[in-house]
């Protein structure tokens, strides 16, 4: 099939970008979306043009590196699917496809479709961990954890840190990302000891890093390739209130 692509091109952080039009010819329905872009890039190179820069690595939907907004939806039209797992059979011959980078103040564009997402690492740095030393820990079965809690922790911990939630959020908020980590750790007995402190510093770090606030549009859940749920945001809010109530008592 043949497609018309409108792709965001931007040379560097401080330069202005724009949407440029490209034709993708003879695209097979078997290709993944990124393989389609590979193909376009091969042609660009052969025509002495600069290829389109985009982030990707594992190409199996788990590293969280790939990050493109396709026709207005982060990771494109197929639900619960990263761009790298999206296949061209979901498009039709003659389609126009708009491809843009994640947009949020906390994610400045570095080049073309590549953004700087280190702000998400900063949120984790603030407190997204259990402060355990290497070695000197009890036997793994010394603390029992109900299956239900372990499952909730796992549900939350499936987040791949791609930032689609931020890209989808009209407020550029990283609330779903932060909430997933809070929920993961607060669902486990090991994580509860630092829970109050953690939720305060992580939400603070989120704002410090230029993310917006949550106003419950729930776009994040719809965009999340891993199905991370907004109920975790409620959990974060609950933990937050608990922390503050404890503080003021």
């Amino acid at each position, binding site marked *: 099939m043949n497609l018309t692509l409108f792709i965001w091109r931007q040379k560097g952080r401080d330069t202005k970008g724009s949407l440029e039009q490209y034709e993708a010819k003879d695209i097979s329905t078997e290709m993944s979306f990124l393989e389609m872009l590979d193909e376009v890039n091969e042609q660009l190179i052969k025509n002495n043009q600069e290829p389109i820069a985009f982030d990707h690595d594992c190409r199996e939907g788990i590293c969280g590196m790939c990050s493109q907004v396709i*026709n207005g939806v982060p990771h494109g039209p197929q639900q619960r699917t990263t761009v790298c797992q999206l296949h061209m059979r979901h498009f039709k011959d003659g389609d126009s496809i708009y491809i843009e980078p994640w947009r*949020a103040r906390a994610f400045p564009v570095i080049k073309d479709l590549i953004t700087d997402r280190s702000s998400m690492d900063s949120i984790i740095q603030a407190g997204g961990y259990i402060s355990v030393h290497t070695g000197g820990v009890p036997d793994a079965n010394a603390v029992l954890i109900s299956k239900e809690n372990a499952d909730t922790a796992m549900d939350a911990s499936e987040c791949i840190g791609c930032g689609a939630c931020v890209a989808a959020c009209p407020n550029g908020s990283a609330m779903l990302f932060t909430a997933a980590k809070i929920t993961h750790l607060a669902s486990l007995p090991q994580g509860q000891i630092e829970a109050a402190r953690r939720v305060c510093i992580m939400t603070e770090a989120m704002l410090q890093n230029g993310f*917006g*606030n949550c*106003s*419950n549009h729930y776009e994040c859940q719809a965009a999340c390739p891993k199905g991370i749920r907004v109920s975790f945001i409620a*959990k*974060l809010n609950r933990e937050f209130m608990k922390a503050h109530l404890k503080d003021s008592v």
Partner: protein
Amino acid sequence: MAVTGQILVLFIIIHMIGNSAIYSGGLNAYADRLHSLPLLVWIFRLVMLTMFSLHIVFGIGLYLENRKAKPDEYAIRKDMRATFASKNMVWTGLLTGVFLVYHLLHFTIQIIHPESAALSNSDASGLPDVSGMVVQSFQDAGVSAVYVFAVTALFLHLSHGIQSSFQSTGISSERTLPVIIKTGAITALVLFLGYVSIPVLIYIGLVKG
């Protein structure tokens, strides 16, 4: 934000129930009873004023922060769950705020339509004629239109705001959120119908005070 919003919602529910006294013809008596407790009324007004002010300050602050966090928009954007209501909270809120000033000038300070002011008109039993004031005002198409418009804005505001406040205060959960979303929207709708019915029914002449 959420807590102030919830308190405002509570007020709005009570206010609607109070207003519905107009249908049973007891509005004047209800208003009179309220005014016989000036201390309570003033405390109440003060609390509401604080809540409102806080809500507005937080709301606008939040809006500005969030706008800053999303400086560039997509060339094409497709909403999946966001709604017109959720994206225009500050505007529907502000409209409600502006309307509130109008509403206070109209029915509390009563300087918009001084001719029908309850302060200067009494009903048959000698009480200030609130009911008459309301009915006379709403027979004016312009006034009714302002109210209908404002209540619509409020409806939009609450259709998102109510469920949102439950999420923000962490009351909702995986299981309850869908229910809360529905209940929030229904509550907003009931409030809308409750409020909009007064000017509409009066204007079309079904309620005559």
